[in-house]
């Protein structure tokens, strides 16, 4: 089902939207997803409960995001550099623990999967749909949303109005981390029922691209992720139907769709003006 396979990217992109709105681009999204996938699997495997697994996955994603926040928000270090370091850290830590726990030659792991709630829809998919709506409301209508947006557009003004830029950006990056952790947990527990090293396979970067694609609006970001998910499932169907085309071309199909849509709808800058700029109080 398209919704299920699109959910990891859609979740991560939804959380990242909030982070970017506050002015922080969390390049470590991939790392948070991978850590989420791994620790969710580890917790689900040792407790037998996929729900505890989800919580562990969220915690792992959040922890990495907060580490990122400490370096970039508190210390003002370049967000891209720190984010890349977070990705490497996650790859190294999950790989190392995986090899020590499950043997160097690997095993095909099986863990308890999330049960469906209605028909084939499970709780995480419902949460994804609800959070896209909820976060749209938070960003557009709530005082917190206004402050977050101000922090991403013009942090000086937000600070002058009495808000703590650092605190708001921590909220933003925490949001990115929580959703990325959940996205990773869903990849291992909701879809795969297993884990493999680096199993996120670049989904974190696709999610970051989806934020741009969705013009920093949660509902549009969700729609973008579903569209890419649809394009991907289409390319699989075309391959299976034996369409005579190089498979590399088919694999590139989702990205061609994204590019085309961006060219058509992507005029004008709508990125938060202070995105990725460190803010130093009183500077």
């Amino acid at each position, binding site marked *: 089902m398209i919704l299920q*396979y699109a959910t*990891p990217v859609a979740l991560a992109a939804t959380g990242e939207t909030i982070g970017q709105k506050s002015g922080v*681009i969390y*390049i470590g999204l*991939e790392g948070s997803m991978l850590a989420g996938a791994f620790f969710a699997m580890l917790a689900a495997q040792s407790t037998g409960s996929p729900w505890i697994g989800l919580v562990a996955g969220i915690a792992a994603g959040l922890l990495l995001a907060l580490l990122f926040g400490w370096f970039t928000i508190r210390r003002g270090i370049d*967000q*891209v*550099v720190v*984010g*890349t370091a977070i*990705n*490497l850290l996650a*790859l*190294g830590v999950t*790989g190392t623990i*995986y*090899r020590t726990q*499950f*043997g*160097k*030659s*690997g*095993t*095909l*792991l*099986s863990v308890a999967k999330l049960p469906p709630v209605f028909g084939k829809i499970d709780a995480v998919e419902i949460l994804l749909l609800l959070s896209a709506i909820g976060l749209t409301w938070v960003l557009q209508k709530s005082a917190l949303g206004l402050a977050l947006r101000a922090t991403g557009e013009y942090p000086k003004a937000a600070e002058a109005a009495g808000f703590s830029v650092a605190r708001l950006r921590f909220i933003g990056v925490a949001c990115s981390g929580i959703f990325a952790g959940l996205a990773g947990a869903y*990849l291992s527990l909701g*879809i*795969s*029922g*297993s*884990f*493999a*090293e*680096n*199993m996120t*396979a*670049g989904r974190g*970067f696709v999610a*970051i*691209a989806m934020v*741009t694609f969705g013009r920093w609006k949660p509902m549009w970001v969700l729609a973008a992720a579903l569209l890419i998910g649809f394009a*991907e*499932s289409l390319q*699989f*169907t075309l*391959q*299976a*139907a*034996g369409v005579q085309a190089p*498979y*590399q071309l088919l*694999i590139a199909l989702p990205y061609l769709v994204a590019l085309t849509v961006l060219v058509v709808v992507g005029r004008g*800058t709508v*990125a938060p003006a202070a*995105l*990725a*700029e460190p803010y130093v109080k009183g*500077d």
Partner: protein
Amino acid sequence: MNGKSRISYSSIVMKAKILWGLALAVIVGCGSTGDTAKTETKEGAPAASGEFKVALLTLGSVNDSGWNSMAYEALNGIKSDMSATVDNQEVPPTNAKDALRSYAQKGYNLVFGHGYEYNEPMAAVGPDFKDTIFISSSGGKTASNVGAFRFYLEQSFYLAGMLAAKQSKTGVIGSVAVLDIPSINSTLKAYEAGAKAANPNIKVLPPVYFGVENDIAKAKQLTESIIAQKADFVIHQANAAAKGVFDACAEKGVSALGSNLNQNSEKGVVASAFIVAKPAFLQLAKSVKDKTFKGEIVLVGMDSGTIDFEINPEYKSKVPADLIKLLDETKENIRTGKLVVPKDEF
């Protein structure tokens, strides 16, 4: 504002991607020990008397539950059975020469490169280090100290194809693979040949590829898409992502076929086409130790027991007796060389 010109959003993402790419390259590359390769001919220090040192290079992670882990287990077999000193690295073909040279300089007697991609670097490095034997898994180049294994996995894929074609109720069978590469495609062609030999009316779907190692979710989604094309038997070349193939098959109630390792204990797997790598690796290592090794390409197949095909015992009751007889006879014919299964050279 600090007066610096503002970097655009897209340039940030670009920068991140470039950094990430570089970092991955470093991670993969830092497997190699950092000894810079010497360009002039330099004989490696011969191993200390009595010590037998063996190294293994793999393209991917040795915990992939497939192609690479099989070689890693064989390496550990050499370690325990021959009390050898062993080491292994994950090395992309572009860095292979450096890794080969550094092992040779450290006095390794034998270096395995588990993939045809290592054959050319070995042929290039071999003449400089006559005291070290280089063996790649597949590949066509040889020298006095450079040779290759050729695992005849096609033989067991052929039998898997026969079983699938005879047992399929829909008349459609398929395969899922990670990459469109010659070594994988050769096995899938043999699967098709076996299927057609057993049942000329069978429809064998063209192989489908998910393109990214370890992506269980994509492997699963792709498997679902060929099941949607009515395939009720699916073989894979997915290594660590095989779980996705098995999971999709189990959920849809169709039969999966394991590969590379005996995966009959996995849910949904009715038979496995696999390699028993350890004896072949051990035999070769012994020939190197006894100095009887000749630089040649050794074809290892069912005749030596290196390649095998096994039906899941729990599934066996669902296979008609005459089919089991046919499979056994075919296996025997392959073993004795009466039947030659097609294979590509690469």
